[in-house]
Every structure is written in structure tokens, then in C-alpha cells.
């Protein structure tokens, strides 16, 4: 039979590092083929080879049974391949239609025929069920819609095989579901989809065939029906990883964080956090569950001093946090692992030691009389690399050269050693490998055992199930209910996350 795409013995080296080693991949026409693996397993490299962005050192590529050398993306596009990159490449000041036809503008007498472009965009949008407003400017559109535009761009170039690199990393669950439906309809149309991900649930939900990569090699290619989630994890990580609830001693520490009737507005000045009241005790992990965008970010920002509260109070060890600057709140003992790690948590272009210095640049032993002792900082970074098992060559590595999981470990390392006894942790494992996720969970449990009070915000119920002592569910800025972590009922939480009144849900406390 002919395959839409067939790779044989692909090897790609970067200097001494082998990113892909003898990879065989055969994608049948009309299927959704998922390629799964941890960060650094070689997924993106492989797709860049297929799309002509990188040249393989060894191996052959066939498209629709025809062997060929794909030495540029133009060749790949000609052969009906289309790629939707993880980071969108759109021009914000142009309209949707202009973006879609950028580089292949429809022309009439040498001028761009905007009306025809809009017409074509509408037709494509209709045909594939990807709703966009062709004449809207891209600036200000949500990432979900931006992704639709990227897909339309690929479709406008007559792609029959579509490659998506980590398409759901930036989407809300609702947007992800819409995307999967779209992909399904492509396949029903006879098109082929190659879907790169490290997100298990998604891969299990949407794909027909799954290829697992580990350390640049194919460890398995199987139909989805033959795989379970646990097996998939073992193939990806190379060992068993537990998602089970972590064993724990029950500690009844004193109350560290007391929040009462706390309100805050979002960037559009609308109430985003409404009358939140709860407390966190020492040695306790309180989880905040909810679909992204239901006030969790605002809660974290208010507590860390990055956003003004419009009303209410939040006391840390009896001292009011509302109205304090981020620096004052840090001094009171709150450490914050931000949800938007790359913008807030690190300076991507700075060395690890520079990143670890943040917040302590005036404090002994890192600085004396306002002069930084870089030797001490470097030594501290080396010690943290060891203690938190950060995969980096040394303190001079630039943050952006690390994988998402390791960047997160750098943030955790800095915040957990800042001396605060209240940890505010926002989305600790977003975009993080399963292996690294386990290590991060271990570290959070260790912090709990040391008696820290922990507020854990996560959109992943699995994570809260494994870690939290109590789970607070938020919907549209309000606390819908509180559930005990030991006896939690996922359906009840799901209902509360969807905004169903918890009167018929068993309440705890």
C-alpha cells in the first residue's frame, strides 16, 4: 500500500548530539497519526526534516510512494504537506485573509485582489468548518482563532497531509475539543494528519496510530486500541510512572494564609475574582481547580502583589498582603511559582545564575553593601542544579537552552530556597515532561513534609488528585465548593468546574 508519508532510517545529528537516530515512520493515508515523546525525544526535529527545514544526515523520505529529497519547505508544500508550527507566525497588523494569502497573494493586474482573498478565505472557512472573520485584524484575536488561521493557511496551500506541532499547548480545553473535531473531519475527507504531542489524554482521544519516540529513536508504532495510558507512559519515559495519590501524614498546622472576601478585576476591568474566602494551613496543600480563565490567575496575582485587589483581605501570618508591593510580600515569606513561566518566571536570554539571583540580589550572602558576589551565586546555582536534578551544563547556561521542565525546575529551585513558608504554585507542570512532572511533584510533597503551606493552582485534575489535601473549585471567579482530596469525586468537581451549583454535591468542612 502507499503511505502518505514514509520515512526510512532518518538520522539527524547536531554536532555530537544525535537528535534522530535511524527513524522509520510510515503514515497511512487518511489516518490521524500521533507522534508522542518527551521534550527532547526528537519529535520536532523529525517533523522539521520531513518539512524540509532541516536536512537529514541519513535516510530517505517518500511522499505518496514517491521517494524524494525535500530540501526546502517550498518542495514540501508542493508535495501537499503543510505544517502548523507550535509558535504561530502571523502578522498582527494584517487581516485574517491577508495573513492566509501572505506570500501567495491573489493578484489582479499586479495588485493584490483583496476581495478575492476574502472570498477564498470565506469559502475555505466554510468548507472546513473553521470559523474566522476574514476581514478582522489578527492583533487581539485569541490563540485558538490564531491557530485556525494557521490551519487555513496550510489548507489554502492545498495541503493533503497536515503536520501539527504541539497544537494544544496553548489552547483551552474547549478550544482543544474543537480542534480535534476539525482534525477528525479532515480525515473523513481523506486527508492525513500528523499530530505531535506529549499530552497523553489527547493522543489517546484523537489518534488512530501512535508512534512513540524516546531519545531520538522509535520505541513503538501501534494502533491506539492496543495501547493503554500506562503502557504509553512506560514507552515514553522508559519506566513506570505513578499518577496515584501521594501517601501522606495528616498534619494540622497553624493557619498561614487567611483570605477573606477577596475581589479583583481582570485587565478589562471586569470582576474576575469574586468574594474568595479560604485559608491554607502549614503542612497542607490546598488545590485550586477550574478551567483556565476562571479567576485563578487573578487570585495568584493579587496574592503576589502583581495585581490590585478591589476589595477584601488576604493575611499572611496575620499581616495584610493587600496593598503591599511584590517585594514586601516576598519579604513576608511568600514564594511564587508563576503560571506564565517564560514571561514571569525567568529571563530566557539570561544565564541560569542570573535567573536564580532574582529577589535576592541585595541579600547576603549573594550581595554585600549592594555589590553582588557572583562566585557565591554561581556556587549556589551549581548546588541547585544538583539538588533539583536540573539538566544543564552549568550556571552559565542560558535559560532558553533548557527544556520546559528544566526551566520550571530552575523556577522551583529559586522559589523553594527563598526561605518563604508559604508557597504559591501556579500550573507547576504545564508544558513539562512526564518524567520531570514526577520529580516536580516529589519536590512539592517534600515541601509539604517540611511544613510549608502550599496553594497549588492547576487546570489538571490529575495533578490535584495526586497532591492536594483539599481542592477548591472555581468557576467565573467564584468558589463553587471545597472537596476533600482523599475522598474526592471527579464527577462532582467536573460539575462544579462547569458552574453547576454544588448544593447536591457532598460538601466538606
Amino acid at each position, binding site marked *: 500500500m502507499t503511505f502518505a508519508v514514509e520515512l526510512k532510517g532518518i538520522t539527524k545529528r*547536531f554536532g555530537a548530539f544525535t537528535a534522530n537516530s535511524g527513524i522509520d515512520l510510515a503514515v497511512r493515508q487518511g489516518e490521524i497519526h500521533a507522534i508522542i515523546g518527551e521534550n527532547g525525544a526528537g519529535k520536532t526535529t523529525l517533523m522539521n526534516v520531513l518539512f524540509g527545514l*532541516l536536512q537529514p544526515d541519513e535516510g530517505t523520505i517518500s511522499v505518496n510512494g514517491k521517494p524524494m529529497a525535500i530540501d526546502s519547505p517550498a518542495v514540501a508544500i508542493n508535495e501537499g504537506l503543510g505544517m502548523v508550527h507550535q509558535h504561530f507566525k502571523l502578522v498582527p497588523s494584517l487581516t485574517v485573509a491577508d495573513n492566509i494569502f501572505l506570500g501567495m497573494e491573489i493578484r489582479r493586474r499586479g495588485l493584490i485582489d483583496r476581495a478575492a482573498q476574502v472570498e477564498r478565505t470565506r469559502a475555505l472557512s466554510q468548507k472546513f468548518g473553521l470559523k474566522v472573520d476574514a476581514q478582522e485584524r489578527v492583533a487581539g484575536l485569541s490563540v485558538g482563532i490564531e491557530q485556525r488561521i494557521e490551519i487555513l493557511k496550510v489548507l489554502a496551500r492545498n495541503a493533503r497531509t497536515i503536520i501539527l506541532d504541539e497544537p494544544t499547548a496553548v489552547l483551552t480545553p474547549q478550544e482543544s475539543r474543537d480542534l480535534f473535531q476539525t482534525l477528525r473531519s479532515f480525515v473523513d475527507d481523506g486527508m492525513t494528519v500528523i499530530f505531535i504531542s506529549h499530552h497523553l489524554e489527547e493522543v489517546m482521544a484523537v489518534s488512530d496510530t501512535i508512534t512513540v519516540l524516546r531519545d531520538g529513536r522509535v520505541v513503538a508504532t501501534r494502533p491506539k486500541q492496543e495501547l493503554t495510558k500506562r503502557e504509553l507512559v512506560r514507552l515514553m519515559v522508559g519506566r513506570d510512572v505513578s499518577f496515584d495519590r501521594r501517601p501522606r501524614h495528616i498534619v494540622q498546622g497553624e493557619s498561614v494564609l487567611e483570605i477573606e472576601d477577596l475581589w479583583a478585576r481582570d485587565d478589562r476591568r471586569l470582576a474576575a475574582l469574586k468574594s474568595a474566602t479560604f485559608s491554607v494551613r502549614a503542612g497542607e496543600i490546598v488545590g485550586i481547580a477550574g478551567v483556565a480563565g476562571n479567576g485563578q490567575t487573578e487570585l495568584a496575582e493579587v496574592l*503576589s502583589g*502583581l495585581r490590585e485587589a478591589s476589595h477584601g483581605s488576604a493575611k499572611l501570618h496575620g499581616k495584610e498582603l493587600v496593598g503591599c*508591593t*511584590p*517585594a514586601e*510580600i*516576598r519579604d513576608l515569606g511568600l514564594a*511564587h511559582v*508563576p503560571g*506564565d513561566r517564560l*514571561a*514571569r*518566571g*525567568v*529571563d*530566557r*536570554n*539570561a*544565564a541560569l545564575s*542570573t535567573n536564580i*539571583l*532574582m*529577589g535576592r*540580589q*541585595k541579600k547576603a550572602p549573594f*550581595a554585600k553593601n*549592594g*555589590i*553582588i558576589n*557572583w562566585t557565591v551565586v554561581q556556587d549556589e546555582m551549581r548546588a541547585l542544579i544538583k539538588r533539583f536534578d536540573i539538566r544543564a551544563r552549568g550556571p*552559565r547556561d542560558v535559560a532558553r537552552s533548557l527544556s520546559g521542565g528544566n526551566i520550571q525546575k530552575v523556577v522551583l529551585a529559586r522559589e523553594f530556597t527563598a526561605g518563604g513558608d508559604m508557597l504559591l504554585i501556579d500550573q507547576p507542570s504545564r508544558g513539562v515532561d512526564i518524567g520531570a512532572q514526577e520529580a516536580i511533584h516529589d519536590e512539592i510533597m517534600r515541601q509539604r513534609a517540611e511544613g510549608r503551606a502550599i496553594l497549588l493552582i492547576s487546570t489538571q485534575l490529575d495533578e490535584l488528585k495526586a497532591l492536594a489535601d483539599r481542592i477548591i473549585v472555581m468557576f467565573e471567579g467564584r468558589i463553587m465548593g471545597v472537596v476533600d482530596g482523599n475522598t474526592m469525586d471527579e464527577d462532582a468537581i467536573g460539575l462544579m468546574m462547569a458552574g453547576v451549583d454544588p448544593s447536591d454535591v457532598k460538601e466538606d468542612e
Partner: protein
Amino acid sequence: MKTALLPDGLIRTLAGQALAFVVALSLGAVIILMIDESPIAVFMTLMRGAFGDAEKIAGTLLQTTPILICGIAACIGLRGGMFNVGIEGQLFLGGFAAAWVGFAFALPPFVHIIVAVACAILAGAAWVAIPAYFRVRYGTNEVVSTILANYIAVLLTSYFTIFLFKRPGGWSETPPILPTAYLPELFSFSRLNIGLLIGLFLAIATAAFFRWASAGYAATMVGSAPKFAEYGGINVRKVGFSVLLASGAVGGLAGGIETLGVHHRFMEGFAPGFGFDGLIAALLANGSPIGTIFTALFFGALRAGSLLLEVDTTASREIITVIQALIILAVSADLMMRRRGDRTGERRWKF
């Protein structure tokens, strides 16, 4: 590494920039050929004009001084994420303030210099304080506001000079400053003065500040990752304001040194373009104060050399401006290409 006194990969940087210079000079040669001059003669004249003898070298350094100090002012801004395009205006006001103290007050020798320089620094800082306030309070783009402030500064100092201090029938200039306010000269044969040493010291001090001071770290972080800095407890607005103020203060200092050391009075249009040349020197040095020493020296040599060019050849001084522009284009292209290589991991020279 951006926190290093001398950046990592220095050799690669220098090689790239050297190549850029060669490309720019070759293009310059073509243009010189177009005006029927020999490029070699022009370049030799330039070199002779800039470095021909001790006097010429001193002349080059004399031109380098204000460019260097303005360059440092720009570096301070760039490191803190602020694009101070108003150095020219700060230079004019600083120059005027220093001259005013110089001729209007009689003070003991050493004290007179200190007071005049201090007033120049204050004038520069005060002039940038307005755009700086609007930047941190209302988010006004500091590029636009500082550019506009330049026009006001230049015209304001002209107004002061012509309507308040000009001798009837004389040039558009203030009375000369008292000798007690003259900056000490380094050599008997040139007006080259301790301003150059101040500039060099300032360059090293600024580099050390950003490398080792806690406050320098805070400013660097605000410049490179403002959201991270805010999250880490740094007062982004306060630091941004301070950075612009410091940048303006150094700009004012440059003007003070120019009037006290070179002209000994304030003249209308006394320092054409030094502020902008300084900004470009800082940009070419990628915001490194140490690197700015060399880029400023280069611009100083071009300016000094072009004086002889008009005397000895038929090429006009403007040809130097053209070559300067070519160099800026070539060097910034080199910078862009290197950044491109960094970002994708794999170096891709094709566009």
C-alpha cells in the same frame, strides 16, 4: 553573556564587525570613485587627518570625548530598556548650564569646575525628567518624547544665548567663562582635556555597575525582562525612571565637559550631532560601555579626519557622513544575522 564586562564570544563579534567594516569601506570606495577621487587617497588623507601626528591624534580624541560620554548615556538607557534619543538636547542644556555657571559666578578654581559640572548634570537630568515621568506614569513612548524634547532644548538654549547673553553685534554666543572654570588640559598643544579621562572612567564604572551592583542587576532585568523583574519584586517604574534620569545626567555632563573644556563659552549649535553619534556608537557596541569606547573613537577619528579631507582633496565632508551611514548599515546587518543564528540554534545565513 550580557552581564560580562567584556562579552563572551568576543572574537566572533570582532571578526563579524571587522567584516562589516570592510564591506562598508568597499562600498564607500565605490562612491568615492563616482565623484572622481581616488579612494586610497581619500582614506590615506582620512587616516592622516585622524592619526597623522600627536596633534592630530589629540584632535581625534577631542572629538571622541563627547561622543563617548553621550554613548555611555545611551548605554545606561539601553541596558535599562529605555531608548533615550534625547541625549542631544540634554547635551545642549548641560553645556549651557555649565557655561552659565562658568561666566556668571566667580568661584575658587577647583570649586568652580565642580559647581559648573554639577549644574550640567542637573540640567541634563532635569531635562529628561519630563519625558521620563510621562513614560513611567502614563506609558508614553520615550523615543518620541525625547526626540521632541531635543528640538525644544536646542531652540531654548539658542533663545537664552541670543536674547539674554549675546554681545550686541557679536556672535551668537555667551560671554566666555572665567579661567577658574576651565577644565585642566592634558597637553600644551591641544585643547584635549581631562574630559576624556572622565569619559573613560565613566565607561568602566558603568560597565562595573551593571556587572556587579545589585541596583545594576535590577536595572538590567527591567531592561531585558520587565515582567520577570516586576514579579521578582523590583519596582519597574522607579528603576525605569532612575535609568532615564541617570542617562540624562550623563548627557548633561557631556555638554558641560564640552563647554568647559573645549569652547570655554556656550555657542549656538556648539556640538552638532554628538548626542546622536553617541547613541549610534552605543548601539553599534550593543549597549556595552567598554565597546562604546572603541566605537566612539572610530566616530571621533572620522570627524577629525574629515577636516583634513576638505583641505587636501576635492571630496566634501559629507562623504564621511555617507561612509558612516554605510558602516552603521553593515554593522547592524551583522548584528541582526548573529541574533538570527542564536535564535534558531542552527546558523542560517540565507535570508
